[in-house]
């Protein structure tokens, strides 16, 4: 009997809250009410006794950092300095900095949006991060015009990177990260092989065109087992590899496949597809990992041999295709340089990452938010780019940026390769939007985990299954 009384009491309490909160989920929030409240300054009666002078309430623009870089201690300090400088110079607008660690930033921002308390500006954020908030970004076209914002210092192709299919400009370039081949000079010297070409269009030292096939050929010679045999030798022992030839590092299947040309898992009608060049790419990667052995598979990538997840920095990987931001993480390998991305079927594709700051379309202060955005992109850019380790999208700032990198890496790196790589950016981007983005992205990554960790797969069958699963995921939101 007593148990029933307890049960009924709980039900009673529940029903009380049900009735009290009945309309909560359907209530329309006022997105920036709290932001407006925050902007209310402390009472100023004492400070301003003159009743005729109206106190000017500054508009508070909240800047959310966390979807990309920006969470390291030195970055936090630099960002705060940038904010303080702006706030000291502007009485009408004040920036409020909100820094969230990357691993929880996506959930935090979603929760803020859901609770009607979104920030105004978000960034730096890349294409992939922005895609998770598709439909939430403000079109900047009108604001650029009304503020007479000067776009002449940007590469037009980089600006187009931020235009969506409807022609809306959802961002202004801030930091760009072209990709290219990082190579370890010592390993090439040891093998007696010439370095890969630095200039796009130039052949390899032996006169052969610089293609994916040529890269594979020299990568196999640079893949060595514990007995000193390379991967072209019949005595090669794949169970005891001590040095690998090549890896498209730190990217997902879309990024890996883009070495074989740009593409998308979404066709023009919004349906799932596997582009033929990408199908060829996945065969190449899979064979490279499990039968030709010049690409480290999952277990090798996670091993100490390859620095448990930072393969090129281990010194045991001869070549890695990666972005300019990888200069962040090259503290252990010393004698490296960069080279051109090879072509596939006559086409060169150097995938591009580009970070910027974006304005959420929920902002109640688009003009003020744009003023802050312009400040971050221009006046604050040198300080921010320095701590983010990013290549400026502003052409006028690029030379100084590479001088800084030369100080950090005195072995002499041919940074012109990075600048030239911008001309071979991927369109569509390998990070482009897909329907039901987060779920589709998960399914694609599950495919990556499968082929990187499972021998004896039927790759074609797995690709067909991937396409069917993606179609089902896309259909969920149709």
């Amino acid at each position, binding site marked *: 009997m007593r148990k029933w009384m307890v049960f009924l009491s709980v039900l009673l309490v529940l029903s009380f809250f049900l009735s009290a909160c009945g309309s909560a989920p359907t209530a329309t929030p006022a997105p920036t009410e709290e932001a407006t409240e925050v902007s209310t300054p402390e009472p100023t009666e004492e400070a301003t006794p003159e009743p005729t002078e109206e106190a000017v309430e500054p508009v508070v623009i909240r800047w959310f950092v966390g979807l990309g870089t920006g969470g390291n201690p030195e970055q936090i300090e630099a960002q705060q300095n940038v904010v303080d400088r702006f706030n000291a110079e502007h009485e009408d607008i004040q920036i409020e900095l909100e820094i969230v660690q990357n691993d929880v930033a996506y959930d935090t921002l*979603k929760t803020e949006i859901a609770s009607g308390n979104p920030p105004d500006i978000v960034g730096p954020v890349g294409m992939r991060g922005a895609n998770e908030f598709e439909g939430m970004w403000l079109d900047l076209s009108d604001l650029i015009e009304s503020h007479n914002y000067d776009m002449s210092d940007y590469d037009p192709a980089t600006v187009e990177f931020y235009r969506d299919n409807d022609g809306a400009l959802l961002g202004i370039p801030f930091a760009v990260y072209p990709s290219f081949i990082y190579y370890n000079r010592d390993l090439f010297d040891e093998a007696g092989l010439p370095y890969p070409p630095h200039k796009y269009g130039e052949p390899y030292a032996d006169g052969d065109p610089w293609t994916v096939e040529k890269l594979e050929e020299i990568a196999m010679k640079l893949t060595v087992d514990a007995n000193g045999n390379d991967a072209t030798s019949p005595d090669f022992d794949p169970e005891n590899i001590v040095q690998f030839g090549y890896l498209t590092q730190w990217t997902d299947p879309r990024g890996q496949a883009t070495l074989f040309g740009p593409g998308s898992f979404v066709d023009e009608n919004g349906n799932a597809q596997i582009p033929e060049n990408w199908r060829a790419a996945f065969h190449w990667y899979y064979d490279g990992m499990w039968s030709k052995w010049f690409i480290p598979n999952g*277990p090798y990538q996670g091993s100490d041999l390859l620095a448990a997840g930072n393969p090129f920095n281990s010194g045991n990987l001869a070549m890695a295709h990666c972005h300019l931001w990888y200069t962040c993480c090259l503290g252990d390998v010393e004698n490296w340089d960069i080279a051109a991305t090879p072509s596939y079927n006559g086409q060169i594709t150097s995938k591009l990452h580009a970070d910027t700051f974006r304005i959420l379309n929920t902002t109640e202060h688009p003009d003020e938010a744009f003023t802050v955005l312009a400040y971050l992109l221009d006046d604050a850019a040198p300080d921010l780019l320095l701590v983010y380790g990013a290549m400026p999208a502003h052409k006028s700032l690029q030379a100084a940026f590479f001088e800084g990198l030369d100080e950090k890496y005195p072995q002499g790196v041919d940074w012109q390769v990075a600048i030239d790589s911008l001309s071979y950016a991927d369109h569509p981007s390998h990070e482009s939007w897909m329907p039901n983005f987060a779920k589709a992205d998960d399914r694609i990554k599950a495919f990556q985990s499968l082929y990187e960790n499972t021998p004896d797969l039927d790759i074609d069958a797995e690709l067909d299954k991937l396409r069917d699963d993606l179609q089902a995921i896309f259909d969920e939101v149709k």
Partner: protein
Amino acid sequence: MEPSKRHKLSASARREARWGLLFLSPWLIGFLVFTLVPMVASLLFSFTDFNLLRPDEVHFVGLKNYRHLLHDPLVEQSMLVTLRFILISVPVGMLFPLLLATLLNAKRLKGKPFLRTLFYMPYIVPMISAAYIWRGFLGTTDGWLNKGLAVLGIKGPDWWNSPRWIYPALVLAGLWGVGNAMLTMLASMQGVPTELYEAAKVDGATPIHTFRHITLPMISPVLFYNLVLILIGTFQYFLLPWVIKGPNGDPGGATMFYNLYLFKTAFPYSDMGYGATLAWVLFFIILLVTLFLFGTAKYWVYYPSEEV
């Protein structure tokens, strides 16, 4: 009669009650704000299409989420993963601490305090640290265990990347946290009246008989307590594989536990309405399992105090 009795409370008793409520209020407020209200809210969400990115477009959808759940292949897959893991980890999670407790309860064992501390210590290591330690320990090419096996001429398995070996790997890693269960079982064993063992000895019972017919029944309330906790914990399991294998259920969906799918639906996929539905279904499954355990407890759990 009740109301009049209340009125008879003395001034000091009322003051005492007020102070009591005051001191309880942090917990009460915390419970209301952080537990009860979110619970009720999540129940309401489960009948809506609440998307985190479109909070102003919430519609009542009735039982649509619950119907969708019945046909969602990922629900079936994640629940199977969870049940498969329960079948492996719960027996091990019960037997291993029982074994340790029995060992530490042995009369002739030397250095009991040291061993007790040793076995309990991993329990106080933060889960995240333990995850990284185990990830390295069970590494395929450079893990200590596989290196040890290689010395014996055995090729160690690909613990973290094989759908077959990932569960034993997770169970092994989970054994680090059995210190608490071991302590409660040990305490319970040490509370068994010694005259029972003495009487059994006089009757010529073997140690196995003694353990089977005296120790186990006498500690069965603690075994029951641990079983309930382990079962509930395993239904909600996902932190360790999340840290070691990431958020995608690798390898091959083998770590896509129900709770992980729930979290991903609600937050990364932003579908809070459906995520809340998954949460309530999990709640009812756990409730049913717990009620089943309590319902069957009278057949196998022995409470000396209930004997008249």
